[in-house]
């Protein structure tokens, strides 16, 4: 079913009028002590007041503000979103297997976060630019990164799988939070250039504790930069629960910096897409930065090196399994009669193909040349490094020469 795969992945959708009302500021009626919320810790549970369009059971509910932003998403597009989510999950499973088989050094699974990543990344335009952490392989896939390029870093053959400028996406950032400043700087650049491209920073719940992330919000607010802070709150930073990083919902943090926020069900691909489109529209039209908290769950280990049984609570895991992002879309598509056997088969074929190609290309990756370690340290020659390279080249041929 070719329509399932031919949908333009960077379509920006229609732009219904932005319901600015949602960012209006509630006022306190308390005498004298400030008009906005100056309150303390929060007692709300993690899921209270999430924006949702698709329930875990696959019912589509009405959410007037968001609905308009995904009104254009028709059956084909829904299937395409579904296909992407299925495929990236398949890639994830395959990569985990490859790691177990010694073909990859490490892999950070995104299991459970497919809707957050696909829903947001599919809302972007080609000329937008994405700065992610290390777990955003689905974002990379949606940006058009080649399959083999997804694994170079994890196989250890390169630090960069792809050329960032080919796909509008920087290569994975391992230093937690650092990329939020890069995204902000990029956005300031877009503004200076007079283009309406938008920068998107992806990061985790744990990252919000890093000073860099707060500084990024400050710069973004001060310069009214067209940047989206997209936080995937997957409840964990390795073994640390989100409650250690934030005593209130993460989405409550940015408003104090002057950046409006939305808290969406990160397992609801439509809600995520709608929220991202709202934020993109604000950014493109001079509205400045927006913060999105996508509330989701890391269903796998932190990475293939991690052992969550040491810290995770099984019951919580079960609870979230019931809210699976793919399952709910599947249920909805079924009930809407969109997920025909034909479609199902096409998606299966596609993901089988992808998995096969992914594996083949991964295991086929060759190690780079020894002397390439000296390349691209500098853009222009550096006399000290040139000398080291010459000496090491001499050493290699000496050793190969068998003298040692």
């Amino acid at each position, binding site marked *: 079913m070719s329509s399932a795969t031919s949908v333009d992945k960077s379509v920006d959708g229609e732009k219904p009028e932005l319901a600015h009302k949602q960012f209006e500021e509630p006022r306190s009626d308390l005498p004298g002590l400030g008009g906005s919320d100056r309150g303390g810790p929060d007692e709300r549970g993690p899921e209270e007041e999430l924006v949702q369009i698709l329930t875990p059971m696959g019912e589509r509910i009405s959410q007037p503000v968001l609905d308009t932003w995904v009104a254009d998403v028709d059956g084909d597009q829904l299937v395409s979103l579904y296909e992407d989510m299925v495929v990236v999950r398949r890639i994830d499973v395959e990569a985990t297997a490859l790691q177990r088989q010694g073909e990859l*050094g*490490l892999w950070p699974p995104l299991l459970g976060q497919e809707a957050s990543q696909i829903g947001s990344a599919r809302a972007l335009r080609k000329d937008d630019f994405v700065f992610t952490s*290390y777990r955003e392989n689905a974002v990379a896939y949606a940006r058009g990164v080649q399959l083999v390029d997804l694994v170079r*870093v*994890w*196989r*250890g*053959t*390169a*630090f960069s799988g792809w050329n960032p400028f080919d796909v509008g996406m920087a290569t994975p950032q*391992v*230093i*937690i939070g650092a990329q939020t400043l890069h995204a902000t700087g990029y956005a300031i650049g877009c503004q200076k250039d007079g283009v309406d491209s938008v920068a998107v920073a992806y990061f985790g719940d*744990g*990252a919000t*504790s*890093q*000073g*860099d992330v707060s500084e990024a919000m400050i710069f973004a607010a001060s310069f009214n930069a067209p940047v989206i802070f997209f936080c995937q709150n997957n409840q964990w*930073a*390795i*073994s*640390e629960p989100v409650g*250690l*990083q934030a005593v209130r919902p993460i989405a409550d943090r940015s408003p104090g910096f002057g950046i409006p926020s939305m808290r969406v069900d990160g397992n609801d691909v439509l809600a995520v897409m709608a929220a991202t489109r709202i934020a993109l529209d604000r950014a493109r039209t001079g509205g400045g930065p927006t913060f999105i908290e996508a509330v989701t769950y890391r269903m796998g280990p932190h990475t293939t*090196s991690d052992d969550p049984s*040491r*810290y995770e609570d099984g019951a919580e895991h079960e609870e979230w399994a019931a809210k699976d992002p793919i399952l709910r879309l599947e249920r909805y598509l079924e009930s809407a009669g969109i997920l025909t056997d034909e479609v199902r088969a096409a998606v299966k074929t596609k993901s089988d193909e992808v998995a096969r190609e992914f594996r083949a290309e991964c295991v086929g990756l060759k*190690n*780079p040349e*020894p*002397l*390439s*370690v*000296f390349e691209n*340290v500098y853009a222009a020659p*550096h006399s*000290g*490094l040139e000398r*080291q*390279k010459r*000496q*090491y080249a*001499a*050493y290699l041929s*000496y*050793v190969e020469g068998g*003298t*040692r």
Partner: protein
Amino acid sequence: MTEQLTLSRALNAGLRRSLADNDRVLLMGEDIGTLGGVFRVTDGLKAEFGADRVIDTPLAEAGIVGTAIGLAYRGYRPVCEIQFDGFIYPAFDQIVAQVAKLHYRTGGNLVLPITIRVPYGGGIGAVEHHSESPEAYFAHTAGLRVVTCANPQDAYSMIREAVASDDPVLFFEPKRRYWVKGDVDFEEEALPLGSARIVATGSDVTLVAYGPLVATALDAALAAADDGLSVEVIDLRSLSPVDFDTVEASVRKTGRLVITHEAAQSGGIGAEIAASITDRCFYHLEAAPQRVTGFDIPYPPAKLEEHFLPDLDRILDAVDRVMGRENSLTGWSAS
């Protein structure tokens, strides 16, 4: 009492003992509590000493070190874990501008018995920022002590000495040696923290190493012995101060010096040792001191790390150089 332990378990035992001996000792860091650290160095300590003393912190290195300073103001002895070498830089300001200087700044009134544990170095096939050797930054910073252990016994003794030190200590743990076993005598009379140790005696060449490369240096000494060369291996143990007296005495005997470390060559510990020993032993040196180090490049991707890390062959090549034997540079401009 002696036991066979991995280096990681020896650190665990040393930390346990430190926690037991002094109730002002606290451990803090990311994932060190429930998980026991990504390398399990703090495994079981939260269960034993409570969440009040083995503290999982928010994900912010400046925050960890900065709050440790405040705890030191109240008389605590915080032991901070930085999860990997490459994640210490966000805390650099708090370490270099605060931890290192506050004793001086307060005219000695504030003591900062802060230990900062850093798993470091390469050789484990890791991704970016997980294989760095940032020790030279700290050895260049007045006010800090910088040490690194190379075997389980030192791991056990030195972590206890570091925690007991009233000065701040950067404690570098050679992560690729975490799983190597060795005897640990829990009652051993430890060497002072600032001292080096001769781990193999020899008369032709002095080979200085520390942390992850001590084992490689010992292998090189064995291999050289097959070639009829007698190599003295020094485990530096302390990078600030450097125990120059021990190195000097050795070089006065051998007349030849090779230094090896994983960190980039330019401005690394090797430069300081070569410069200081040349100054102290100028008339005893038969050849210019040679450095076998990482290159002046970012740590490369895993599949290329063997072309960055000093190994036995590169060390032996340098030994050949100081011995005036045929070597990879023979035929090169004499430099």
